[in-house]
């Protein structure tokens, strides 16, 4: 049974067709990503260029000169171009003079970049906007990387107990297991499923299958999470081209952005009302569904933020795919498998496809675009008309959800 959402207070969207009378529609007309992985021969600029070229190729009908706005997500791991990160990549790919800015919301940076591009188009200020993100995380020593991996946790108190995100999500996992009928085996099942999907994705960082035994017996990272319950750190970039209906109607492919939702939450876990749900995800989903005039029942597949396996379980519940405490059942029954009723993370998710922080949110939209336009090859979900992407920053301090609808133009 799907969860029902309470009405969103404080803002009102007019659902469905009548929405266009207030704000015009926005469409994804092209999307592309680099491979995710460890690439000592690549730079953040070259990875971004690869993603941009693929997005342009897929767009058919859009030329670089058509882009009049760019929003780029990056956490800035390594500090390589912390200032002017947006222009650094858009000028590199020839978008000379195009206003370009960086958006930082930790792991949700480029999910928010997509949202910003959608806002730009819907507002009428922009006809074609580029949203994207990048991160390079594997070109530094483990010691240096340590300085960057925890920068999005609550710094003064949470981090200074000695935690990074694995520790914070492990605390959430401990509370979830304490509250519901769940075990670490369910985390292992997330790994098995997402690796099975990622093995079908040539751009996945860890594109291999793993057995349940492999996942169960991996070294402990932060009890109850083991290595297979944690995503890798990756290099990569992803880009999405967002356009108005007039432009989209001239393109080869177009996916309608039916709903967008975003919300913030207190940065530190200890500051929150619940450790077994992510309120920002719930609010973002609620907004996106309401704007789309759709609900969780209407979703054909989802790309969710599985930075740690517990996060995928929380996402099922926060996004309304099941009631509280029922996420383990979805895994036990194979409902979220690629051939299940509601496939989740067909790309392999953060676990297998990889997690180049700033690229992840846009990368999820890339997968949704491919699925909705029938270009997902071996992992193509049949009859995929409505997809959802769910991107979380940190341990939930920011969340953004997109509901995307194919076959409308």
């Amino acid at each position, binding site marked *: 049974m799907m969860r029902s959402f309470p009405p969103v207070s404080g803002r009102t969207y007019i659902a469905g067709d009548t929405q266009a009378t207030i704000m015009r529609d926005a469409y994804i007309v092209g999307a592309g990503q680099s491979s995710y992985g460890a690439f000592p021969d690549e730079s953040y600029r070259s990875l971004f260029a690869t993603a941009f070229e693929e997005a342009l190729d897929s767009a058919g009908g859009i030329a670089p000169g058509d882009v009049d706005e760019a929003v780029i997500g990056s956490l800035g791991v390594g*500090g390589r171009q912390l200032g002017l990160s947006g222009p650094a990549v858009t000028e590199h790919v020839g978008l000379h003079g195009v206003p370009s800015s960086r958006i930082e919301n930790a792991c949700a940076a480029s999910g928010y970049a997509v949202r910003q591009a959608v806002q730009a188009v819907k507002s009428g200020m922009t006809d074609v906007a580029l949203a994207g993100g990048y991160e390079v995380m594997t070109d530094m*020593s*483990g*010691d*240096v990387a*340590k*300085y*960057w*991996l*925890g*920068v999005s*946790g*609550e*710094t*003064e*108190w*949470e*981090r*200074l*107990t*000695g*935690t*990074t995100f*694995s*520790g914070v999500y*492990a*605390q*959430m*996992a*401990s*509370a979830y297991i*304490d509250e519901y009928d769940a075990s670490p085996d369910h985390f292992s099942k997330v790994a098995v499923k997402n690796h099975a999907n990622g093995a079908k994705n040539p751009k996945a960082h860890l594109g291999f299958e793993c057995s349940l035994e492999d996942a169960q017996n991996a070294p*402990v*990272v*932060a*009890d*109850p*999470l083991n290595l297979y319950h944690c995503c890798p750190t990756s290099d990569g970039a992803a880009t999405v081209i967002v356009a108005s209906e007039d432009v989209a109607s001239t393109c080869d492919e177009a996916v309608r952005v039916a709903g967008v939702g975003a919300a913030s939450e*207190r940065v*530190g*876990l*200890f*500051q929150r*009302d619940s*450790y077994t749900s992510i309120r920002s995800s719930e609010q973002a989903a609620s907004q996106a569904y309401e704007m789309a005039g759709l609900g969780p029942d209407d979703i054909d597949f989802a790309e969710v933020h599985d930075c740690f396996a517990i996060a995928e379980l929380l996402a099922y519940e926060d996004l309304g795919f099941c009631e509280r405490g029922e996420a383990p059942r979805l895994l036990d029954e194979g409902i979220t498998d690629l051939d299940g009723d509601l496939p989740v993370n067909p790309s392999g998710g953060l676990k297998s496809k990889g997690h180049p922080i700033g690229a992840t949110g846009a990368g999820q939209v890339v997968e949704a675009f491919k699925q909705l336009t029938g270009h997902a090859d071996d992992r193509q979900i049949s009859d995929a008309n409505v997809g959802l992407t769910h991107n979380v920053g940190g341990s939930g301090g920011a969340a953004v959800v997109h509901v995307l609808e194919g076959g409308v133009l």
Partner: protein
Amino acid sequence: MTGIAGVGAYVPRLFLPAEAYREAWDKGGAAGVERVAVADADEDTLTMGTEAGRRALSAADIDAGAVSHLAFATTTPPADEEEAVVRLASLLGVPANATMQQYGGGTRAGAVALAAARDATGPTVVVVADNPAGAPESDQAAGAGAGSAALVLTDDGPLTVDAVGEYSDPSPGTRFRRRGSTETESIGITQYERDAYTSTVGGAVDALDADISDVDAAALTAPDGKLPYRAARTLGVSTATIASGTVVSKTGDTGAAGPFLGLASALDDGAESVLLVGYGGGAGATALSLSAASDVPVDAVFDGDVELSYAEALRRRGTITGEEPEGGGAYVSVPTWAQTIPQRHRLVAGRCRDCGALSFPPEGACFECGFLDGYDETRLPGTGTVEAATVIGQGGAPPEFVEQQQRSGAFPVAVVALDGPDGDASDDSVSIPAQVAHTPAETPDIGDRVEAVPRRIYEQEGVVRYGFKVVPTEARR
């Protein structure tokens, strides 16, 4: 007349058996020492002194806010130069306008501080803590222990200092530490050092001009487990009297804190009169004779309960580990840290002026009602309940904690609902994140009760950041 109204003592829970040193080095080690207490990587003389000070205040039933004089004696302060006593006051809650003095320079420091405290007016706290070290192969290292004790003096405290005697005579090389070094040494000439100890201690006791032959216990600085007994004949007391005031065999050499741990132990065993002698290399001694008009409250832990291997002890002491890696990224500046000292040292929370909910740290909008009306300060007792927990393994910690992990290994972390000011686990609580200072590093169960303890959190730019961690209530000694 000013007297001691309460005594606290704290010895770390980690210990190394003397046998482990003997096996590692294939030689005898420190005379008369069965085991040595080992400070954990997040403990030092300031945290141990805070533990003892809080216990002494509790035993004396004195509020730290009423203290007008604080003395801190140690030969091993966290930094060679900087007034550790100031942060000790903050950790204890002693007011900023109290008189504060720090004593060092030799292991006599505690006795000197107590002799001076006799003349102080108003509630006075004397904290003595030491954590000596030696070159790994040396007898000093073999015997080096760790511990602290504290005394609270009030106008009507039952244990009075009846007489003070002093004696000094140059004996260079008997116990010293070179400038900039962390390793205590001695010249290693056995008879010379024994004579210096015996004659100096004897001279100070002579200067007391009091009959000490009947005291219940004699608590002497104990560089090893034999020297105090060698002084028995000179002092005219039995070795049993020495034994009643000596804990070195169970703690190791605790430097300036040694005679005070002996005093606490003797009082805990019911002693009514005690001779306390502080001896410092070089050499000088201060003797005090004390007598109790009635029972003296003592709140003390003397015995460790976690045995270490020799390699583990070297790691905990930082003898064989590295330092924080270089890097960038997240950073908490010293001024930013300093703004939260009331929270980190004394658990000062806030109560929302609008809705009454607790907030920690008390800043920003209230998480309960969302208003920015500000907070009234309220101090939390430090008890709480685990709400979520995990263990951070090697490699999983931020760089600030790399050295701690090298030394102490994996550590648990938890989200803890700290009890409100009334101290019960009712709805009036506030959640905080905390590291769990516990060996072995096991994940606490949700619902476990814990208590806050003072600890080093991390060191950066040469500045140690002190705060609180929690320990399971069932493991609290």
